[in-house]
């Protein structure tokens, strides 16, 4: 039974309310799991969200979650205690609201300060340093806080760029 059927049960059914997909997952902090999560996320929202917004959402989440994965492996942990992260995405009026939490090290403050792209020296092109520029450029209401041993990052990806 779908949730709207349940709400409409009984002699005086309530008018159907619009239900929207959401996405929640706990995944291992490693690139293959990030990839799988993004593929599943795309399927979940495919009918509701434009290809353009979906592409921006996927890029932002790839950058955020790959950063978590990279830093989870950088801080050596006992093998049995592989790091995990939580991802939650819900649809709001103006965009897709996302929250990512993980128990890795504290996020360096400069990640959230306004950034410029790495200098484009044609003789020595930068091969990295783009991730936080992309995250900042594609999100709204980006915020971070540390709660005990956990990192919490939240932001919105607008439906219309």
């Amino acid at each position, binding site marked *: 039974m779908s949730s709207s059927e349940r709400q409409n049960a009984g002699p005086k059914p309530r008018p159907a309310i619009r239900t929207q997909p959401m996405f929640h997952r706990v995944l291992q902090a490693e690139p293959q799991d990030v*990839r799988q999560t993004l593929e599943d996320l795309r399927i979940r929202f495919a009918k509701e969200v434009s290809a353009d917004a979906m592409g921006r959402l996927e890029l932002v989440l790839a950058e955020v979650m790959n950063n978590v994965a990279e830093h989870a492996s950088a801080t050596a942990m006992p093998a049995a205690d592989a790091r995990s992260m939580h991802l939650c995405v819900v649809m709001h009026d103006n965009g897709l609201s996302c929250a990512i939490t993980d128990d890795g090290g504290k996020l360096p403050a400069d990640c959230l300060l306004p950034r410029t792209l790495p200098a484009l020296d044609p003789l020595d092109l930068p091969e990295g340093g783009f991730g936080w520029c992309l995250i900042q*450029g594609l999100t709204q209401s980006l915020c971070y806080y540390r709660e005990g041993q956990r990192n919490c990052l939240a932001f919105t990806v607008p439906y219309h760029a």
Partner: protein
Amino acid sequence: MPTLIVNETETQLIVVVEEARIDAAIATRFKDRLREIVLRGRKPVRLDMRRVDFMDSSGLGAMIAVRKALPEALPLVLEGLTPNVERVFRLTRMDSVFDIRPATTLQE
């Protein structure tokens, strides 16, 4: 191993990227494999990107590393970028560094 299909002619290398995603899960191997192909060929390279539906900054970093590995005089042309891939080049201004062309030139 990333799937790259190489068609070598007298004058150029055409490399078809048969991967839907160039992301952190594959970027290092993609970079190593593509660099090996273009350095062995020593010819102008055309990279057919039509099958690539997603690329993140680690994938972009791999493309930049390959460009840097090629002698400056050897062209590396990217053809048929999908919207998700084009977005990454545009937002990082790397579209001003790479030679990016529509897929139409690939008809043969």
